């Protein structure tokens, strides 16, 4: 058995695409070798990548496929041989199977005698298969953005392929990818190793051979190296820590082949700029890590991850160069900050008329007016329910919320939209409540984010998103399938999350208020998002969520409480039986409906004893369950419903619901309908999956 190495040498691949491509190449190569019976399923495989290469090392590859035999079955024997002579049918089959007519066998099958043939297949050599199949797998890799580079555009790939190494142990596999013939040579670090080829003696020595050429091909190893180097560089500043940033660690890991880290400094005066701006400049524009002091505040330092290793002189040069660029960026940011201050937010409302929110709808000025309407309605609704809030501050925040779109700083750092407005509001003395509400208007940005802490911020965030969703649905821009260019799902997720995690006494329908469209499209959309929240964020089982939302899907926190109660009781034996019984009731009612049977009143005839017993028990239980539901003691209510089990079981054992007698049948149907309705207010138990 041999090791198979495949390395695709590329011009620098975008960092954001490397991890997925590395994983996909591994999957493809493993699948290919497995499909071709060249490895055992548990064969060890390792993948590697750097900006300039994707590689896979597969162990335990067979030199060739095992020879195999295949049994083919052809026409019926009596059709194939007439009086011992092969007919045309026999000859055609023999030809197709690739055997002589004399080699055909008689096969007994349950359907009678048939002609069979044993076909021997000689296993193909691994090298031959790899040469034919690997190029297809490589060129089949998915890339978010492709290019072509060869004349005639024979293929598209992320960047030009510049070399290929393909080896089975020490032997080159003669394959070709995008016009490049594979060899046993790789390339090392551009600067530290230079242009000389890195000759690989055997597949297994790949990672070590490249390490000698100043390339760490293992992604986890580079990531670890970077983390340690960041720690080490930060230790030179007493009490300091670098700001954890997983995403940035991944980016720089995929931007380097031989990472090292330097610590640089900037002038203290820049710390007067908001931390958000400083960190964004460092992270997004320069890919630097921010450093904080023991007090958690930003320190005047930065950490840059280099793709090289230099002596002390080089380090000084690089530190100096990076610091100069950062200083220029900060200067720019300060220029914008000062420039923006000359026109306070309040004076910017008018200019929102020139910023389009949505072509068919209007400008951000229009949106601001609409947001104000929704904010007023929401404020009125929560005040009625006794929530204390600073309504003037909320409305001021709603009025100014979008004005930062006209500032230079937001044009430069669009990701800081909202935050910048909040910071300006604070600097312009508009008060903490207004500033914080503007600052937080886009939180939670993702489902993991926390919601705004204060009521005003929560309401502003709700108003803005509700307005957007309703307006977009109004002009037929509802998300469809995977298409959601305006991120309405994310907006709706945030609405659900704010309602679920704040103390706001608002139902979804209250929140949507007059703004909701009449056709129920919006409420259906929100219900879907609520279902997503309960399942994917809160982790409730899908059937529990289905059951709970079938009963009611308007009050988010109530739905959560009911889902919790249902989760707690669902596995009880009695409860499972009740769920099964309710499912049965639903089925019977459905069948009855299909057959046109009338649902009568259980009072209309004398019921069977078991039916009457069920009716009595249900009648006795109903007020108690209703009282418990009223006080939201859902678990107790559900436990009480579960006590119905014996009477329900007996009822179904003894009573034929669909009785031949129309009056009895009608009364029975009326009874089970009453039970179903009476006890489905907390959850529709028939949705629960029982084993």
């Amino acid at each position, binding site marked *: 058995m041999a090791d198979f190495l495949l390395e695709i040498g590329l*011009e*620098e691949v*975008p*960092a*954001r695409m490397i991890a997925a491509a590395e994983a996909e190449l591994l999957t493809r190569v493993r699948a290919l070798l497995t499909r071709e019976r060249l490895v055992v399923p548990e064969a060890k495989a390792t993948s590697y990548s750097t*900006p300039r290469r994707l590689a896979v090392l597969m162990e335990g590859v067979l030199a060739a496929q095992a020879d195999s035999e295949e049994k083919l079955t052809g026409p019926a024997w009596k059709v194939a041989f007439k009086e011992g002579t092969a007919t045309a049918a026999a000859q055609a089959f023999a030809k197709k199977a690739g055997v002589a007519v004399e080699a055909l066998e008689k096969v007994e099958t349950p359907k009678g005698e048939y002609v069979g043939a044993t076909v021997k297949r000689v296993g193909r050599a691994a090298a031959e298969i790899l040469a034919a199949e690997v190029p297809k797998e490589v060129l089949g890799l998915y890339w978010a*953005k*492709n*290019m*072509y*580079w060869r*004349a*005639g*555009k024979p293929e598209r790939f992320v*960047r*030009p392929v*510049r070399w290929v190494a393909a080896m089975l142990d020490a032997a080159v596999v003669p394959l070709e990818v995008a016009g490049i013939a594979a060899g046993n040579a790789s390339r090392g670090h*551009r*600067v530290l190793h230079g*242009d000389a080829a890195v000759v690989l003696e055997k597949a297994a020595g790949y990672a070590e051979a490249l390490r000698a050429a100043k390339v760490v091909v293992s992604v986890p190893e580079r990531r670890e190296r970077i983390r340690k180097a960041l720690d080490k560089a930060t230790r030179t500043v007493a009490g300091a820590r670098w700001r954890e940033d997983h995403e940035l660690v991944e980016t720089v890991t995929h*931007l*380097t082949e031989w990472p090292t880290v330097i610590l640089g400094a900037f002038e203290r005066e820049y710390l007067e700029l908001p931390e958000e701006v400083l960190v964004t400049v460092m992270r997004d524009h*320069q890919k*630097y890590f921010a450093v904080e002091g023991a007090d958690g505040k930003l320190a005047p330092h930065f950490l*840059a991850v*280099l*793709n*090289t290793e*230099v*002596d002390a*002189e*080089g380090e000084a*040069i*690089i530190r*100096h*160069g*990076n610091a*100069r*660029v*950062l*200083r*220029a960026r900060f*200067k*720019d940011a300060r*220029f914008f900050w000062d420039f923006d201050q000359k026109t306070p937010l309040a004076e910017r409302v008018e200019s929102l008329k*020139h*910023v*389009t929110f949505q*072509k068919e709808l209007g*400008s951000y000025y229009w949106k601001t007016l609409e947001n104000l309407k929704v904010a007023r309605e929401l404020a009125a609704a929560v005040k009625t329910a006794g929530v204390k809030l600073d309504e003037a501050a909320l409305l001021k925040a709603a009025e100014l919320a979008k004005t930062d779109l006209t500032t230079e700083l937001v044009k430069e750092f669009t990701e800081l939209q909202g935050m910048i407005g909040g910071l300006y509001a604070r600097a312009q003395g508009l008060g903490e409540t207004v500033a914080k509400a503007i600052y937080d208007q886009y939180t939670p940005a993702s489902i993991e984010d926390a919601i705004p802490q204060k009521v005003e911020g929560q309401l502003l965030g709700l108003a803005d998103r509700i307005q957007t969703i309703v307006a977009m649905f109004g002009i037929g821009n509802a998300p469809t399938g995977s298409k959601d260019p305006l991120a309405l799902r994310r907006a709706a997720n945030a609405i659900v999350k704010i309602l679920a995690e704040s103390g706001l006494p608002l139902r979804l329908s209250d929140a949507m208020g007059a703004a909701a469209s009449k056709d129920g499209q919006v409420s259906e959309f929100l219900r879907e998002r609520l279902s997503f929240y309960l399942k994917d964020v809160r982790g409730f089982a899908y059937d529990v969520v289905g059951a709970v939302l079938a009963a009611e899907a308007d009050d988010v926190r109530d739905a959560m409480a009911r889902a919790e109660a249902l989760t707690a009781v669902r596995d009880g034996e009695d409860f499972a039986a009740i769920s099964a019984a309710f499912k049965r009731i639903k089925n019977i009612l459905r069948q009855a409906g299909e057959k046109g049977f009338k649902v009568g009143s259980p009072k209309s005839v004398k019921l069977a004893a078991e039916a009457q017993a069920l009716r009595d028990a249900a009648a006795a239980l109903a007020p108690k369950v209703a009282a418990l539901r009223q006080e939201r003691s859902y678990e107790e209510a559900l436990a009480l419903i579960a006590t119905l089990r014996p009477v329900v079981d007996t009822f179904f054992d003894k009573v034929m619901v669909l009785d031949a007698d129309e009056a009895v049948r009608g009364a029975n149907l009326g009874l089970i309908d009453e039970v179903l309705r009476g006890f489905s207010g907390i959850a529709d138990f028939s949705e629960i999956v029982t084993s």
Partner: protein
Amino acid sequence: MLQQPYDTEVGAGTMAPETFLRVLGPKPYRVGYAQPSRRPADGRYGENPNRLFKHTQFQLILKPPPVNVQEQYLESLEAIGIDLKKHDLKFEEDNWEWPAGGAWGVGWQVMLDGLEITQFTYFQQCGGMDLDPMCAELTYGLERIAAFLQDVDSIYEIEWARNPETGAVVTYGDVRLSEELQFSVYNFEEADVERLWAHFNSYEAEAQGLLERAGKLMADEKAPAKEKQRFPLLAAYELALKCSNLFNLLDARGAVSVTERVGVIGRIRALAVGVARAYAQQQAAA
């Protein structure tokens, strides 16, 4: 070969005909030129040490690119005095597009010690047409590179020339500061919006007229090749460039609302793409 910069206002070296038109068609071409590039909205009255209304791009077109184009590029850095062993260099994804020219490519911004010194693009489409062969477009930011090499914090401190006898220095600021200041004032404060629109419309009308005739002529199979070749498409393109610059001025002046923007870019695109199409036909007729 080396070319002179184009003598009409452009926003980037790509827009000069030496790039925009030469990349079309199958004919190999290699050219370099230092192109002053105007971006009215980037003006900062000469107060910002890193932003300019007009900067200079050294633009290099390699059609088709050699296979070792990246290595050759690195050698070019060494040639201007950057010892790569003492610096940190990265190729970071940065794709380029000029929607009004129907042009785009994929590539990198080349980062040297955290400074973007070059935009490196594999040009894929121009004038809405696939390029075959495609080309490498290397755009060196000359002011940045000079400031880097001379280790000065402000572009205006770059030493432009030195008198070999007296050692007296002329700086970038000496040469260009007043231009930055005055054009910032013009672009942001003084430019007459109505007249700019009138100029725009006028240049557009003339370009459209030429394009209409070009369209008929290039489609006419019976028209003699000579007739096609002498048709002034280069002039039509220059008119399109005028429109593009006027649009940038109007934009800096705050006179283009977001809603209007798309429409105006569409108008410029119609001209630029129209010229590119006709130019490709004209070349094919030769």
